[in-house]
């Protein structure tokens, strides 16, 4: 969840290779006066990867059980909501590095491309195909092309929720974040 450390120039002595290089929680300066709760912040960070995994599970389970791209995307979005509630915009920025509009666009593009690809093979738009593969460890694996449409929906929903947090959430943070950062970005 923290930043990659590849840009460290000095080689790290082996005695310190597992010492933390970043602060795990935010410093007080970074969180812009957001009311902090240590318990919530730590729990959010611990739960976050698990919730994301659940969302991916829902995405793939959708074909046979309750779930699907929409529900999965919402669960992933709620994971980011949790991070945001714990630490405000700074915490959200730590959780996701990609600009949310890019995620929205990627999702929509994936869905549209999935819709159009069958036309290249002379099928009608949005026709779907399925293959059954034998994967050594997992056993029989069935892949339907409409899964990609579902992934597109998933990405788009995640993007929409994070974008919502970025704008509506940050926009109501008593104007603190907006004056410094958002205004420059727009």
């Amino acid at each position, binding site marked *: 969840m923290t930043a990659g450390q590849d840009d460290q120039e000095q080689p790290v002595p082996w005695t310190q290779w597992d010492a933390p290089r970043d602060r795990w929680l935010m410093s007080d300066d970074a969180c812009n006066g957001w009311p902090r709760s240590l318990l919530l912040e730590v729990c959010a960070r611990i739960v976050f990867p698990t919730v994301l995994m659940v969302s991916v599970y829902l995405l793939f389970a959708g*074909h046979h*059980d*309750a*779930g699907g*791209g929409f529900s999965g995307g*919402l669960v992933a979005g709620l994971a980011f909501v949790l991070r945001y509630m714990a630490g405000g915009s700074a915490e959200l920025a730590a959780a996701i590095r990609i600009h949310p509009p890019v995620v929205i666009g990627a999702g929509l593009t994936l869905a549209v491309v999935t819709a159009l690809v069958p036309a290249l093979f002379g099928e009608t738009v949005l026709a779907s195909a399925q293959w059954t593969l034998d994967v050594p460890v997992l056993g029989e694996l069935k892949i339907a092309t409409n899964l990609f449409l579902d992934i597109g929906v998933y990405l788009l*929903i995640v993007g*929409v929720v994070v974008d919502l947090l970025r704008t*509506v959430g940050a926009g109501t943070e008593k104007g603190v974040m907006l*004056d410094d950062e958002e205004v420059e970005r727009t």
Partner: protein
Amino acid sequence: MLIAIAAHLVLAALLPLIARRWGKVAFLVGALAPAATLGYALTGTGRALGGDPPAESVAWAPDIGLEFTTRFDALSLIMILLVSGIGAVVLCYYFFYAKPDDPSTARNSALLTMFAGAMLGLVLADDIISLYLFWELTTVCSFLLVGGDGTTKKLRRSATQALLVTASGGLAMLLGLILLGTAAGTFRISEIIADPPSGSVVTAAALLILLGALTKSAQVPFHPWLPGAMVAPTPVSAYLHAAAMVKAGVYLVARFAPAFADLPAWWIPIVVLGLWTMVLGGFRALREHDLKTLLAYGTVSQLGFLMVLLGVGTWISALADATLILAHGLFKSALFLTVGIIDKRTGTRDIRELSGLGRRWPMLAIFATLAVLSMAGFPPLLGFLGKEVALEALLHGDAKDLLLLAGVAIGSVFTVAYSLRFLTGAFRTRKDAEPIPATQPGVGMSTMVALPAIAGLVLPFATTVLEPLVAGYADGYVARRPSYELGLWHGITGPLVLSAVILLLGYGLFRAAPVLVPKLSGWVPGPLQAQRGYRYSVAGLEWVSHAVTGRLQAGSLPTYIGVILVVMVLVPGGGLLAGVEWPDELRWFDSWLQLPLAILVVAATFTVVLARRRLTAVLLTGAVGYGIGALFIVDGGSDLALAQFLVETLTLVVFVFVIRRFPPRFIEERHFIRKDRWIKAGISVVAGLFVAVVAVLVSASREPGMPAASTAYIENAEAETGASNVVNAIIVDFRAFDTIGEIAVLAVAATGAASLVLARARSRSAHRDSPDDDQAGRSEPPDGDSPESTVGARTATEPTEATEVNR
């Protein structure tokens, strides 16, 4: 001929590149397309005039019966002679006319070539949809060419007027064409004309089509756009507003006249407005001092004449019309090109300033004289030939025709007078003015004037060529072909005598005009003046749109929601009242579990209304949502319930974020809120009851058992989509197109909401910088202010999400 149309359009796309590299040579390159088309059309003359005109067809969207069909018959050939012949001449002329560093070369050469292609498509099209497409393409080209670079108010105003008038007429025409095509059961023009439908729908269709033709051909009361369009460069005016585009209306009427000639709703407006236009245009031409505007009013007048002849609707009148269409295109383009030379060499077009040009430029004066004499109907030119036939057509008819004859004669007297006025104004040597200094016009430009002018002299003697062409069109009329032949000399007949009288009277009017015209002008009362009518119409439209937008887009969230709810109740509610079927028996519940959940939802709803704090209200709304999710579970809709819970959670979080910025309590004390509280309550209650009733009625109207669609979905889900979860199979496969549409809406809504918030944040931070606005909240009205609206925009996307789920 399809390839010719395509060649024009492709060439037009390439011309900007050519113009960038080689400058004004682009005009010559552009001229290649119409010139080649003309040659190609001439080689096909025999087939076009034969009994079975060649047709070509390209399926465009075959599934819905859309195709692009061309039919190359006599009328098309006549129009192609004008469109492509004059087009090639004008483009060549433009090459000599344009300055080497003219910045508009790329634009105008491409637009003119595209226009030539569109016009070609228009006169060849045999199905009404492509006819309309080309029709509007010519309108757009005209708008762009008249507007030019749009740097002056006059350019913009003239271009807008041309666009508004012709495009609104075009829309009416589209409606008429569709009505006609539906009534006839075919969209092929040739089939409609061969077997015209009848009935009141067809009458309405004919009137609508006429509206398109009359606006395009600048007939009263729509004519003012044409003189206004004279702000365009002269070659453009010569082509679009004299020879080609304004003929489109005449062409349309000529195309449909064989089918509708006997329909009173068709010919009465044509002859009345046509005559009025002919006389009015002639009169106005006598008042103008600008040579180009003079010619423009002359064009208006001539178009009226052509319309009248079409309204008469006999074989001879059609013969006259076809001849005059050709004649008018030739002489009017020659005259416009002459004006272009005069304007370019002397810098003025005002006949009060021009003097001595005839002596200085004898060759040009001769060519212009040829064209002017053709316009006046002087033997032995093409204009005379056409007018002879026209008089012949009207002379031997009934009382109505004789009445028309009188009108046409008056109009022709005006024509002779303004023709002479043009000629003397442009070329004579005035006693009271110094001869205007000017260099010789180039050979190239003069040649381009000479070509159409000399064609007008040669064609009357080549009746063997001309007769089959114009008679080919006239043969389309049902009336039997009389024994009349084109010719310059029929002996001393009525028309010849009449022509002589018209010429004499015209000369008299020309001499009397300087005294007579100022006395007569201005007699039209203000409200009837066409230009004023146009201005008032546009102002009225703007007033209406201001009024409607001002009322509906008041900027208040409660107003928006109120409008939506009222419409929702009134429109489907009205339909419901008309044919409602109450269910026989109402079940109160299916499972005991539903009871406590329903009670929870209802109780939460009532408490929301009573809540004093915003946070309480939001949480209670959430309780309603969760309760409904639980009801879904009871009914076994696990997918639905999952999505409902997730959306509800997200909505709740967003609400909580937003109401941090609001006062904790609802505003209650203010008087003005209490005033319309009852209205709001009434609308809410009625809308809620309506939704509840509709829900009961809709679910009761289902057939017992599972609908066929559901059964099919369930059967095919595993095999076709690889998903055993039917809900998911529907979302990602069976109705995947809906899904894509919905996520696209979601993306747009999210982007829009983000932009709103960020834009507001920017303006807020800008406010904060200014010292006089220290309290941002002060300027916000308590009810329906901007943060609330933003939330409204945001939450408006939630139903979209829910729609996807509920499907």
